[in-house]
């Protein structure tokens, strides 16, 4: 029986992609990068650059992005409207972080 990965959705342990993170933006990016690589793609060694086109280059499917949205809402305690789930906001790690930060500032 495979474990249900959803049970670990809130955890960020084991993410070490940005050891020099000094500000909130790079922290958000590191959490999102870790979730995509470890939970969604199950490719722990994948190094995703902040500006890589996640959807266009086929790293994330649309359905996986919906999963990511649920995670972000839970982890950061923010609300993301489905209409905001678009290429502008979810095209890159940097744009996702910008969206989350704008929510945290509200």
């Amino acid at each position, binding site marked *: *029986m*495979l*474990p*249900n*990965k*959803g*049970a670990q*959705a809130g955890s960020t342990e084991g993410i070490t992609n940005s050891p020099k993170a000094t500000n909130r933006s790079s922290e958000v990016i590191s959490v999102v990068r870790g979730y995509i690589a470890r*939970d*969604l793609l199950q490719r722990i060694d994948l190094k995703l650059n902040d500006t890589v086109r996640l*959807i*266009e280059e*086929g790293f994330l*499917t*649309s*359905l*996986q*992005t*919906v*999963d990511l949205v*649920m*995670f972000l809402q*839970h982890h950061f305690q923010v609300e993301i*409207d*489905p*209409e*905001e*789930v*678009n*290429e502008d*906001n*979810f095209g890159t790690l940097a744009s996702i972080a910008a969206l989350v930060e704008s929510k945290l500032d509200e």
Partner: protein
Amino acid sequence: MLPWSKVSSMSKIRYPEFTVYHLLLNTLDSNRDGIAIVDAGRGYSYAELGKQASSLAGTLLEQGLRRGDRVGIYLEKCWESVVAILAVAQSGGVFVNINPLLKEGQVHHIMANCGVRMLIADSAKLQGTSLPAVEATLCRGADCPPLSWSRKVMALSEALEHATRHPTATSAMENDLATIIYTSGSTGRPKGIMWTHHNLVAGAQIVSTYLENSCEDRVLSVLPFNFDYGLSQLTTMVRVGGTLVLPRSLLPGDILHSLRQDAVTGLAGVPPVWTLLLQNRRSLARQPLTHLRYITNSGGMIPGTYLEQLRQLLPQTKIYLMYGLTEAFRSTYLPPEEVHRGPACIGRAIPNTDIWVVDEEGRECAPGEVGELVHRGPTVAMGYWGDEEKTQAVYRPNPFAPPETREADKVVYSGDLVKRDEEGFLYFVGRRDELIKTEGYRVSPQEVEELLYSIPAIHEAAVFGEKDPLLGQRIVAVVSLKNGSHCVPEEIRELCSQKAPHYLVPRVIHLLREVPKTATGKIDRSRLRHEYAKGQD
């Protein structure tokens, strides 16, 4: 009374629709300034489409393209990918759409398998690749990389503006191969299905007839062009002079934005598309999509709960449930007024087509009996490229024709099990090779999936059988849960047991984050069976 504009366009003499090029030619006559394509917010007219397709066709011919040569199109869905399809068709070549998500290994297989002679591709996708040798490559976007395997490398943008010396007519006729569509089967590497111009044109005629398409339609293109169902939105819109809207992405916000912004009238989807659209249920309830005239589903049965939600949220929209397989494009559709018959109902034969339900002895089944769906009509494709054995297994002589015409009259044996009710409506039962035989019962995976989808916590479900010494086969389910939901396999089994007899309840349940899909978005049951079934059967 019809409005004058319609009368006048109807009275015009149209070219006989022999090839894909003739569909475009007619629309250039009737709706030259109409918008053909909306890409990244910009509209392109049919006049522009005709002009650029002619320029590109001319370039391909100047580069030595011969009638029947295969041309690979490995582009993101965009304006140029539409021009490329029509240009290759016009030039007399055979277009081979390659899913832009495919990587080097799979692209290599397709190009080598059908002997691609020229390639039209995104520059960025070709960086550092080693693909089979081609005569010429036309690159879209800056920085055409040097390609050791391509004799010539040119910029697509220049070919589109190129003043051609070649005539704009086409050398193709309707029996010529127009496209090869690669599709994944249950075994082996993708196989190419050969479609003639006649197949494509007949498909566009049939579909635009029952969907009642006109030049007023604006259809959102969410499915890839390398999928026959996705290509159909393009051919039908070109035929009627309507508009094809290319969305920015398939993310829920972008789909909804396109539907609203471009006042889309038609949307064709596979089941995962409805999952994405329904993320917006609150917005849809608040502000209904009043322009959306129809939606169509094919490529898998839509879960009953989604169908109900779509009917509620889109009360003015006609819902067409359809059935087809790439070997014969489209077989049946359910008229929207019959949609209450439920998601398993696939309706009746499309126009100009015979659909039979045939038992193992080759006789037509009585109502209620389960048999194989057999298709006869003008969309029956030519067979599998380079695979005569498989072609003969699927494309067989018409069993109901007199002996004198039987051999010449090829029909498609679908491998899908269906049954017909007393009124003549067809119901999907399952893939013949996926039917589960457990405890002496014949169980279709779809029936168990429907049962699982009736549990609110379940997001996606796929079911198959694995060998069991006692039961013959036992039912295995792979499911993902909706976020925020918690449910253990024991609870799922308990909920199933409350609603169904024990032989329909999965013995084994795997919980996954997401149920794997094929490149065209269908649940990949054969991959699941391969990965999770302990005893193959």
